[in-house]
C-alpha cells in the first residue's frame, strides 16, 4: 500500500548537485553519511556501532551504507 505526502504531478527535475565519493579507506566497512550526503561522519565494522558513532558525532539521522571491498565488483549481485 502506498501513502501520499506532498506529491506533485510531473517529473521532479531537481538535480543532485554533487557526486558522493567513497574513498578507498572505507572499503569493506559500514559508513554513515551526514544528512546531506556531503561527508562521511562515521565508519566501522558493524552497522550498530556506526549508527551509534554517527549519533555521538551529532548526526542523529545519517544515511547508512556498506562499502564493498576494493577487489569486489558487482554484477547484479557480487563477484570477486
Amino acid at each position, binding site marked *: 500500500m502506498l501513502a*501520499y505526502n506532498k506529491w506533485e504531478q510531473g517529473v521532479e527535475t531537481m538535480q543532485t548537485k554533487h557526486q558522493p565519493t*567513497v574513498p578507498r579507506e572505507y572499503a569493506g566497512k559500514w559508513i554513515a553519511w551526514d544528512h546531506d550526503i556531503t561527508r562521511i561522519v562515521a565508519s566501522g565494522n558493524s*552497522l550498530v556501532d556506526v549508527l551509534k558513532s554517527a549519533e555521538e558525532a551529532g548526526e542523529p539521522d545519517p544515511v547508512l551504507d556498506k562499502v*564493498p571491498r576494493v577487489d569486489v565488483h558487482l554484477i547484479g549481485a557480487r563477484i570477486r
Partner: protein
Amino acid sequence: MIYSYVRYLMEPTPTIPSGEVYRPRVPIRISGPKRSVQIFGLLDTGADHVFVSESLAEVLGVEISGESGSASDAVGHEIDVWPGSVEIEISQTSQTLRWRADVGFLAGDDDPPIAFLGHVGFLEYFKAIFDYGERTVELIPKGDFSVEP
C-alpha cells in the same frame, strides 16, 4: 527525481583502470517496528525483489527467525534469505513517497551492499532512466502508482 551515481574508489582493473566505479545508489528511508533509518540502496534491475542486509533487521526491530529460503546471485551462489516486512520511503525536495514492502533479509555481512532495490517492492513503482554518461538516474513514478491521501 534525479540522483547522482555514487563514486567508489577501488583497485584498478583491466576493465576499469582508473579504479573509479560509479553505482546507481539512491537514499531511501526504511522503517520497521523499532525505528527507521536512511540507507543508500543499490538500484538493481537484476534483482527480482528488494533484498536488504540482515544487519538491518536488528536495527529496525524486524523478526527474521524461522526457516530461511534462498536466493541466487548472478553467478549462481546461493545465499540464505529470511522474509520480513518493512516500510520504504523515498523523497527529494518536497516529494515523498512511501509504501510497505515484503523484502528478503540477506544472510551474511560480508560484501553485499546494504540493500538491493529490485523489481518487486521498488522498481515496479517507477520508470527508471539510467544515464551512465551523466552519472545520474531518474526515477519517474508510474502512472498507476497507487497513492492515497
